[in-house]
């Protein structure tokens, strides 16, 4: 009886979480004339017409490529710069350690709207408008606080002896970082990578401001500004949403443990 209640509660919670997404998926399979009719809830003859329509003209492909490239470059850069900094903070002697960590954490509280206008002016002055580079630099910086916070807590958990032993064996500081500490902190590294990737894949405000054509436009901007001649093309928006959400859902289902470790490692333990 009590088990039954538990499963019922779990069912309610899961439906609440995924129902809007399922509805979007159903919408994407409906023909246009079905969209202006409710009931029925289910599509009468599921059709891929909207998916075919958005891939016409290759523009959407280009936009997906932009998003994938920007998110991947950001992830690599943020991990490189962030792990160096975290290693320094966790294992090396540095003055003002607490101050640096506090500084990094306080930056994560900066509202994006406060930095968007000066950054826009700088990017315009450097003719970096509508380029990947502008987005990658901005995203890397804004994902640093989270990366540093998570990685530092992971590096701290590694025993100091391992690092010291490698130094005694003749490794330089950098060698022992790359060969000994990094492989041992791989789970933390991975957790951080997923979070940074999701952040860059989803970011909207900077992307909306810095991009202007399909040369650098990313998925969220494209979906927000979906062109419609006469009315909002709900079917195509739904199809596009399903396509950009699918990889994230897969990421979450496969790596939920890592994601949860990353989210909580930075906040609750720290």
């Amino acid at each position, binding site marked *: 009886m009590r088990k039954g209640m538990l499963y019922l509660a779990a069912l309610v919670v899961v439906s609440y979480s995924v129902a809007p997404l399922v509805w979007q998926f159903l919408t994407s399979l409906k023909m246009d004339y079905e969209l202006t009719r409710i009931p029925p809830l289910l599509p009468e003859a599921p059709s891929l017409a909207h998916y075919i329509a958005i891939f016409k003209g290759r523009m959407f492909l280009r936009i997906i490529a932009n998003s994938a490239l920007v998110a991947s470059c950001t992830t690599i850069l943020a991990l490189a710069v962030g792990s160096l900094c975290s290693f320094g903070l966790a294992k090396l002697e540095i003055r003002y350690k607490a101050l640096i960590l506090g500084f990094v954490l306080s930056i994560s509280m900066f509202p994006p709207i406060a930095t968007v206008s000066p950054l826009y002016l700088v990017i315009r002055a450097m003719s970096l408008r509508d380029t990947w580079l502008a987005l990658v630099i901005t995203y890397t910086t804004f994902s640093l606080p989270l990366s540093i916070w998570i990685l530092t807590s992971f590096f701290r958990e590694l025993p100091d002896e391992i690092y010291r032993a490698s130094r005694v064996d003749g490794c330089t500081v950098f060698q022992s970082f790359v060969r000994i500490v990094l492989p041992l902190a791989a789970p933390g590294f991975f957790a951080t990578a997923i979070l940074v990737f999701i952040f860059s894949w989803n970011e*909207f405000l900077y992307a909306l401001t810095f991009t202007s054509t399909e040369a650098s436009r990313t998925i969220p901007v494209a979906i927000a500004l979906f062109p419609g001649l006469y009315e909002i093309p709900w079917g195509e928006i739904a199809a596009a949403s399903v396509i950009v959400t699918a990889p994230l859902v897969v990421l979450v289902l496969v790596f939920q443990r890592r994601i949860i470790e990353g989210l909580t490692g930075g906040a609750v333990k720290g």
Partner: protein
Amino acid sequence: MRRVETGTWFVMPAILLLAAVTIFPIMDVVYLSLHRKLLIFGISEFTGLQNYRFLLQDERFWRALSNTIYFTGLSVVLEVVLGLALALLMNRAFRGKGLVRALVLVPWAIPTVVSAKMWEWIYNGDFGVLNYLLGTKVNWLGDPFWALHAAIIMDVWKTTPFAAILLLAGLQLIPADLYSAARVDGAGPVRLFRYVTLPLLKPVILIVLIFRSLDAFRVFDAVYVLTGGGPANTTETLSVYAYKVLFQTLQIGYGSALAVTVFVCVGLIATGYILLMGRKAGLR
């Protein structure tokens, strides 16, 4: 002495990047806010605190501020309460728990823009599924009362998983002995929750409140895409208003003053929580 130097090299790239892309712009935005700057006409003149004086008389600013406070307060409270319920559920042992946890995380991972578009379609007054399910005919996003609440409901849906995951981690840190000891003393589930779970979870609840309040106060995507601030600015939050002034009417000076205000408010909220935490820690 040598090692101090090596450590500095490791930290330097991150610090430099953060300084160039966050600290410098923050100083610059304050500087910009002291100017009348209109990009299209190439006008830029120093006007001191003129923008801030204007801001104090700007009704649209006060409206946006009160919208933002209302949005933040209501959504954060709902997220923590629902998040706690979710966390308590996920903390129980049952088959398929891993799958439930993963599915609950899905809304958190979806781009905010996508979830805004999704809900815009659900809320649609003519063909939306919400009206169908409730048997109503409400134009949710066109109604001054409902539009802001519609945005809040969407935000709660999207960010409750984050609160739940942090709270779940907090629940798992509570030693099981405490529960068995309290049970031996004859405490039922309600008293267990009231006298064991809640007090021990307090620090984590506070962390969730900080994270969520700071995030909700700067809300942009959710509102901008769902309602664009409408109808008649009833859902316009500070970030949305600042964005429109900056990049739609291109008043960089006044827009920067609004942006600085958001920054100051967020700073005040953060300071408030830190003081609150400090006092709690001091009392113990």
